[in-house]
């Protein structure tokens, strides 16, 4: 069975500082990895994904994530945080099972960027 862990319920960072939101996963095959963001009272929005190729993936709003196969991690990063980045962030993994890809989401990490 596949799983996703987001070990931090909340991450606090000052505006202008770099941020990292952690994600580790467990799958039996090759993973498809995603990050989504959810603003209050909204649906989830796609940020970036890793399927294959370069381990560093760049996405929307200046976010990037690094796929680390040996550590089974896919941490989300941004060099300089903005107050407007404050939101709930979800990591998701999908792998082939019973002929289709079944997505599994982490519990989410609340990012709070302080002015």
């Amino acid at each position, binding site marked *: 069975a596949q799983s996703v862990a987001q070990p931090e319920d909340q991450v606090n960072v000052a505006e202008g500082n770099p941020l990292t939101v952690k994600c580790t996963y467990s799958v039996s095959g090759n993973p498809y990895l995603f990050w989504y963001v959810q603003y209050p009272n909204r649906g989830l929005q796609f940020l970036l994904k890793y399927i294959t190729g370069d381990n560093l993936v760049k996405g929307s709003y200046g976010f990037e994530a690094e796929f680390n196969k040996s550590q089974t991690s896919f941490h989300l990063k941004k060099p300089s945080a903005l107050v407007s980045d404050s939101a709930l962030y*979800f990591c998701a993994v999908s792998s082939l099972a019973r002929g289709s890809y079944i997505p599994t989401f982490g519990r989410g990490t609340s990012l709070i960027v302080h002015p």
Partner: protein
Amino acid sequence: DARVTQTPRHKVTEMGQEVTMRCQPILGHNTVFWYRQTMMQGLELLAYFRNRAPLDDSGMPKDRFSAEMPDATLATLKIQPSEPRDSAVYFCASGLDTQETQYFGPGTRLLVL
């Protein structure tokens, strides 16, 4: 700008009543997912379809929940009878395939009294 739409956006009902939630996926997407979000459980996958065929509904309470896709432009999630523990935000998402990016609708906020 193509979007997933969901109706209603808000629903307040009494225990025992039937609730029907509707979703219109993005045109051309062949995969539809239903999720439930609560503070306690986070985001739970209830069911999903590919080319209108149900692939997995193991996350759904079978005795009261049902999910269908009458046609390619409409997915429905029904709860009958509803219970207070069903109170949650229900999201629909669509994608080009099950391993591809999912595009989420704005959600239906359900309150069962």
